[in-house]
Structures are given as C-alpha cells and as structure tokens.
C-alpha cells in the first residue's frame, strides 16, 4: 500500500493515511462517507503543455487528469485486460458507469492471460474456480429488480462459479430494461434457467443478446412480458440446443412463428406450457408438435385460439407425452377430442387434465378413455356436458384409471356416481368430487351386490345434496376406504358417518371433515375407538360442535395419530390437558387456531405435547397471551409455531 503513497515521489500525499488496506475489506467501502478528507498536493513535476485547462479548482483538475477522463472505449480496453474476477468486481464498485462498462464485456473479449493467473498465489481462504459450471442462482423481485443489480450479478458471478439460474419477478414499477439483460447475456454464458415475469420494458433487443450469449439455456419461463416477440424465440431455438423446458404465459407478442422455430430446432424439448397467448394458433402448435413432439413428455395448453386440428395433431404425434393439460380451449369441439383419442398416439399418457373445454362431452371423453390405455389420472373440470352415462362409459373404457377427479360437473347425479363406483373395475383407487351440484334425490333401494374393493380414497367437497344416505351407500360398496374427505357438507350427520366408519374394514388412515358442522363428539369418539390402530391424520377444522369429549376419546384411543386439526372447534383447556396426558400420542402437527376457549392455562399441556411437535398453529386464539406464545417459542425450539 505504501506504493500508492509514493507514486509522485513524495510521501506527503494523504493526510488521512491509507483509507482502506485492501480492496477486499469491502466493509470499509461502506464506512467511507463524505467526511473523508482527501488532500491533493500540487504535482512536483510541471506539465509542459497540458491539453487540459488549469483551473482554480485543484480537485477538478485532478479529476480531469485521472482515469475518469478517459472515454468509454478506452476504459473498456483497460477493463477487458483486467487479469482477474476480483479486480473486475472491485472496479465494478466504483461507479455506475464503470459497472455498466464492465458488464458489457463478453467472455471472449477478455484477454487476460490465464496461465499467469495460475502462477499468482491465491489469497488465503479463497478458491480459484476454473470452470464456470453455473451453479449459482439469483432471484430478484419487485423493487430490487433493476439493471444495476443485474449488471452487478453479471460481473460478480462471472468467475465464482457462474450464474446458472436467474429469476426476475418484476412489477409495474420494474426498472429492468434490455440493458440489464444485455449485461447478463455478456457475463453469464453458463446460464441454464431463465425466468422473467412481469417485465414491461424488456424486449427483443436485450433477449436476443441472451439467446446469442447463453448457449446452455435449458429452461425458459416467460410471463407477462408483452414486448418479447417471435424473434427471440427463433433466436433461442437456433442458438440453444439444450432447451428442455419452455413456459410462456400472457405474452402477447409471441405467435406461431416462434413455436414453429422451436419445433424445427429444439429436438430435446421435453416440456411445453403455453397459456393465454392470443397470437398463438393452430399453425404454431401444429408446427411445434409435429416436429418436436417425439420427445415431449409434458404438454400444457391454456386459453389459446387453437382448434380441433391442434388437438388431433397431439393425438397423432406426441407419442411420448405422459402429462397433458388442456384448459379453456374454447374452439376445440367434441370432434377434436374424438380424433385425439382415435389417433392411438397417446399410448404413454398417464395424466390428463381437461378443464373448461366444451369438447369434453360424453363422446369425446369416452374416446379419450379408449385411446389412452395407460391413463392413470384424470381430472375433469367445468364440463357442462358430461352426463351420468358418459361417466360410466368413460370409466369402462379407461381401464387403467387409478385416480379420477371431477370438479363442477353439474350434470353428474348420484346415479352416475354410484354407477361409476360399481363399474370401475379393480383399478380405481381415488375418487374426488368437488363443487358438483347435481346430486339430488336418489333411490337407494336398488340391490348393490358389487363392491369396489380398490377404492382407497374418497373426497367429496362442497357438493350440496350429498347426504347421509349417500355416505352410507358408498360405505357399503367401498369397504376398503382409508382416506376420507368430506368437507363443507352440512348434510352429513353423526348417523351417516357412524355407519360409514363401521363399514371401513381396512381402517381409516386420514379423515378430513372440515366444515361438516353437524358432527358431534359422539362420532369422533366412535371414530377414535374404531380406528384407533390406523388413524394418522384427523382434520376437524370448522366442526363447531366438537369439543373436549372428542379430544378425550382421541387421547385415550389413538395410537398413531400425528396430525390433528381442531381449528374453530369448541375445545377448551381441559381437552388439551387430556390430549397431553395421553401416553401413546405423539403428535407432529397440531392446530387449535380460532379456538377462543383455549387459554394460557393450557400452557403446560401444550409444552408436553410440544415435545414431539413439528408444527403448531395458535393463530386467532384470543385467550392466549403473547407472553405464553413467547414462552412456547423458547421452549419448543424444534417446532414451527404460527401465532
């Protein structure tokens, strides 16, 4: 450091002594303030004919003599010869101008001599990373998403392993522009995953540089970036052969041309997801799938102006697809689904989601069932046309189906439901019905000889009309139920549930009865006794009539229970005390949120239970003081407490 002081031949340079011992003491950068006094003595050597004007202000003259006076291109030439990443990072800290200049240096413009670097002794405690593997990952959100930050990331990660993953979540005020992305493009050739959300100022200019600079790109995720157009996609397709995963949402500038290019050049593409891009149509999807469809395993199309043609092409060309999701495709009709199913190309399809598609009629879905012999999971939502008959023929044609979820299929009635369960063969394991309002009166007198031994999981949520009789009938048909979810069903009472509990020979493992407001302690006690050896999770969120007696029964009987949720129930301290006094109960997750009768008196009980707890929810417990919560936080250090 003394060399710094004697450059002019004299030692009487700085009055303050060395301001920082080395550039690595970065903390000292911050401690410098405007109060630091810098003393510049006049130069000892006189200048002959200075090109710069001597001015009154010595400070100003000094400034002109210094490196700051060099134009950008000269500074650039100096920077690109800087021998190491540390020096580059230190220079990047000087000013925005220097940072932006440094961030514009492409890796192939760096002309430092690598062999010299290896001979230089490395500092203690630091490693020299010779390869840019790109294992660093950065994420910027909201206010912090700025060009300066991106430039700093580009310079800072360059020789420290390289940036592998970058995610930028902008906002309306986002200040990320093409400049910032250009910096990333120059500085991070190892970038593998790029995710850009909500960036209104970022357009092709910056992204084209990314496409040209980051050849290792594997994953691309764009959402709400209206200025990005097909040019970028074409460039990415041509320059990034490793592209595996593309997700584009709400980008109005992206259309068919980009997708066709992806299909043409990206033969490794495995997963595509295109949502809500008004310019994307049949041409793009067909171009993509017919060329690159061979390797695709996941396809997700939502809210696009595609017609039957695209769907048909998927059915014929996407031979490797395992997960397919079609949502809100309003121009696809029954014919499209029929052709897709009859194409017999979807041999490997395992999971299918069809939501809000008017082509999801009985005929369409049945052909899909026939055409996908390996279909295991099916989720149908908002189908106005699926009827009871259709449901039954669907289940008969989809012979491998293990999981069926129906949501908002209002034409389905109880007759269809029971037809489904009886005819489902022996593969269906899980059935879920949500928001289906078609369940009304049903004649349960028909003899039901068959049973569905394979159904393990039943979930009925918010289906008004699902009453005790339904539950009992289902219980008799499905003796091997292990997971039951009945939520938001006011029509379920103790009687019905009790009969179900008695039918379940296999022993219930998970029971979720949220929002079934007519259930009482009686049924909880029965459940605890009947399924004491198997019950692991019990959710009684919102069952306002359940109280301490239920907890007592649980405490006495349940051996395996690890997850208990009694939020908004009528439980009080004595119930918790009973829970704590159980010798066999080892709860891992407990929620008593919204229970106003639980007070500070239950603190010892909570502490005892808390020894095994990993999660405890005490939100909205008005009678528990914050002091108690603090005590719990101290003692139950292993437990994640919400209060």
């Amino acid at each position, binding site marked *: *450091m003394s*060399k*710094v002081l004697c*450059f*002019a*031949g004299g030692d009487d340079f*700085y009055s303050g002594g060395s*301001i920082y011992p080395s*550039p690595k003491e*970065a903390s000292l*950068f*911050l401690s*410098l303030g*405007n109060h*630091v006094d*810098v003393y*510049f003595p006049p130069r000892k*050597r006189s200048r*002959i*004919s*200075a*090109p710069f004007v001597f001015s009154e202000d010595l400070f100003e003259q*000094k*400034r002109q*003599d*210094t*490196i700051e006076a*060099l*134009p950008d*291109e*000269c500074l650039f*030439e*100096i*920077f690109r*010869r*800087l*021998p*190491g990443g540390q*020096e580059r*990072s*230190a*220079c*990047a*800290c*000087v*000013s*925005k101008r220097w*940072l932006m200049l440094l961030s514009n240096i492409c890796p192939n413009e760096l002309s430092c001599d690598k062999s010299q670097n290896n001979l230089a002794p490395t500092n203690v*405690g*630091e*490693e020299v990373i010779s390869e840019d593997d790109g294992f*660093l990952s950065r994420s910027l959100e909201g206010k912090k998403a700025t060009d*300066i*930050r991106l430039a*700093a*990331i580009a310079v*800072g*990660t360059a020789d*420290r*392993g390289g940036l592998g993953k970058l995610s930028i979540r902008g906002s309306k005020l986002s200040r990320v522009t093409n400049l910032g992305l250009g910096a990333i493009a120059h500085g991070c050739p190892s970038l593998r995953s790029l995710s850009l959300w909500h960036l209104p100022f970022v357009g092709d200019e910056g992204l084209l540089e990314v496409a040209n600079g980051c050849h290792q790109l594997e994953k691309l995720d764009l959402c709400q970036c209206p200025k990005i157009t097909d040019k970028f996609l074409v460039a990415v397709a041509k320059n990034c052969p490793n592209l595996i995963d593309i997700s584009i949402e709400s980008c109005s500038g992206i259309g068919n041309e980009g997708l066709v290019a992806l299909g043409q050049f990206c033969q490794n593409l495995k997963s595509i997801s295109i949502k809500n891009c008004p310019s994307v149509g049949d041409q793009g999807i067909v171009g993509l799938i017919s060329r690159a469809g061979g390797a695709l395993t996941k396809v997700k199309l939502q809210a696009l102006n595609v017609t039957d043609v695209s769907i048909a092409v998927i059915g014929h060309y996407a031979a490797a697809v395992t997960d397919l999701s079609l949502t809100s495709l309003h121009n696809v009709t029954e014919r499209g689904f029929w052709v897709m199913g009859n194409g017999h190309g979807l041999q490997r399809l395992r999971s299918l989601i069809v939501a809000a598609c008017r082509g999801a009629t009985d005929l369409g879905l049945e052909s899909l069932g026939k055409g996908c012999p390996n279909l295991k999971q099916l989720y149908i939502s908002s189908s106005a046309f699926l009827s009871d008959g259709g449901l039954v023929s669907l289940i008969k044609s989809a012979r491998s189906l293990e999981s069926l979820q129906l949501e908002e299929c209002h034409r389905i009635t109880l007759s269809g439901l029971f037809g489904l369960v009886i005819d489902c063969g022996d593969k269906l394991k899980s059935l879920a019905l949500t928001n289906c309002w078609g369940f009304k009166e049903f004649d349960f007198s028909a003899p039901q000889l068959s049973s569905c031994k394979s159904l393990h999981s039943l979930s009925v949520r918010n289906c008004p009309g699902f009453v005790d009789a339904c539950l009992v009938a289902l219980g008799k048909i499905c003796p091997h139920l292990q997971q039951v979810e009945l939520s938001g069903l006011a029509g379920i009472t103790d009687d019905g549930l009790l009969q179900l509990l008695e039918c379940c020979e296999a022993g219930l493992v998970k029971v979720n009865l949220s929002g079934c407001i007519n259930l009482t302690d009686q049924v909880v006690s029965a459940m605890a006794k009947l399924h004491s050896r198997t019950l692991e999770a019990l959710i009684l969120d919102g069952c306002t009539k359940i109280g301490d007696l239920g907890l007592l029964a649980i405490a006495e009987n349940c051996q395996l229970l690890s997850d208990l949720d009694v939020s908004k129930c009528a439980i009080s301290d004595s119930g918790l005390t009973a829970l704590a006094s159980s010798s066999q109960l080892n709860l891992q997750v407990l929620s008593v949120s919204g229970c106003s009768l639980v007070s500070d008196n239950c603190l010892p009980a909570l502490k005892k239970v808390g020894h095994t707890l990993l999660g405890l929810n005490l939100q909205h417990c008005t009678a528990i003081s914050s002091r108690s919560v603090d005590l719990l936080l101290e003692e139950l250090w292993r437990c994640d407490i919400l209060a």
Partner: protein
Amino acid sequence: MASSRKITLRSSDGESFEVEEAVAVESQTIKHMIEDDCADNAIPLPNVTSKILAKVIEYCKKHVDASKAEDRVNDEDLKAWDAAFIKVDQVDQATLFDLILAANYLNIKSLLDLTCQTVADMIKGNLFPVRNEWLNFTFSIANRELVLVCLTEWVAHRRLFCS
C-alpha cells in the same frame, strides 16, 4: 525499400513532426487519411499534443525498425523496450492516459494494447493511486446502493468459500 515518402504531422499546439510514411501508417487513422488523399500538406492532429506525439512517434519508429531489421530483433528485446518505454510513464499517470487517448484516436493497436494492459496490471497490483481519488469523488449516495449490490456478490462469494 527505396526512400519512402515523408509525412508531416502537426500536433495540437502547432509543432510539426516529419516522419517516414512507414512509421506514420502504423496509425490506422493516418493511414486512412493518406489513402483518402488528405495528406498533401501536414496532417493535423488536434487531439494530440506535441509531447505525446513525440512519444507516439518514438514508439512507432521502434516497432517499424524492429520489424524490418535484417537480423530480426528478438521479440523479447522488443518487449523489454516496450516495458521500459511505458515504465517511464508509470510515474506520470497523466501521460499514460494521454497515450491511451492518443493510441485510441490514432488507432494504433499495439500501443493501445500496451498502455491498457499496463493500466490493468496497475489496477491489479494496487499501484493505482487514482483509486482513492475516484473512490472519493464518485462515491455518492447512488453508489452506496451500487457498492451494496456488488458487496452482496462479494459476501455471497465469501460465504461460499471462506468458512
């Protein structure tokens, strides 16, 4: 070669320098001017002072002589000469920068390489006293954020590798 043409170069402060054409065309800028027939009289160089122009000419002359000597001057000798040439100016930063500016304006690649590499090495070797200067006058509120941002990278790096 036969006697080559002499070219006159005029510095910003009016001094004229007469050099052989082979030396003058080390500068791409001057070379283009000659080709475009602007070199009838003296070539004015308003951005270069006589002091700097003298040094530039000295450099170009040495390099031209080195490449056409019968016994080719050893590359190492030339490098040593370069080092000595620039070392004189290490003491006087202003001349170094003026040389960079001149090499940039006159488009003399080898001189630009030499001068810029020198500055880069000086930044690395902490020989650059200018650092304190720019750290002070450019250190404003805006840069505090900047430094914090660059620091984050640094801190992340240290956390990763310094236990």
